[in-house]
């Protein structure tokens, strides 16, 4: 029973690490994509504060 719980906890921590990694990778992807999107003149005009 304890072994099962330990394995489950380890899996949860693994999932946490994977989740944070995916977040970081998605963010860097979003940064690259946004640089492309921001090249459009009409879009820059749209988001002008």
């Amino acid at each position, binding site marked *: 029973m304890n072994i099962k719980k330990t394995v489950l*906890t380890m899996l*949860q*921590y693994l*999932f*946490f690490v994977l*989740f*944070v990694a995916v*977040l970081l990778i*998605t*963010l860097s992807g*979003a*940064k690259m*994509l*946004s640089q492309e*999107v*921001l090249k459009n003149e009409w879009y820059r005009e749209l*988001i002008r*504060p």
Partner: protein
Amino acid sequence: MVSGVDPAMKIPDSLLSRIIFAYLPFMVYAFDLEKAWIAVLCVVAVFWLTVFFFWFTRNLFPEKLRSEVFFFWLLAWAQAVWYFTKLQPLWALSVFFLIPTSFLEPSQKASRVRVFSRVVPRYFWERFLAGFGFIGFVIVMALVQEVLGRQFGMMSFQRPAGILLLLSLAAFLWKNQPYQR
């Protein structure tokens, strides 16, 4: 059962207080009506997505780290929206105040409700209505600011003072609802 008071945050779980807290970051932005629409839709979209995402995945994360995961998630959204719209990430605070974090706290009742149970549709429906309530609230505030501040030129409504007055008026009316049981 699923919407208890969260003692860690000391914020009452009634809808209006959540909405008023969530509205505070909006007072910093100098929005016109159109930008207020865009920002509030962004807040509510992330709010609904967050509730949906964490309700179904919360058990996959370690109990001790659930709040941190929520924090990272919020930071990531704030950063991503900043990349695309250059909108200052204060709006993430609005999401933070709207979210019932109680279901992420292992000690809270809501977190002990099973992921797939009969109360889940009601829970989502309440969160859905809370989002709509927030949209309505922000738009009413932006409209009043637009009409009184810009069209009638009342200086106090171009500054946070007028909005604070409106907030206290809303809170007063909410407390004194005529048909409240």
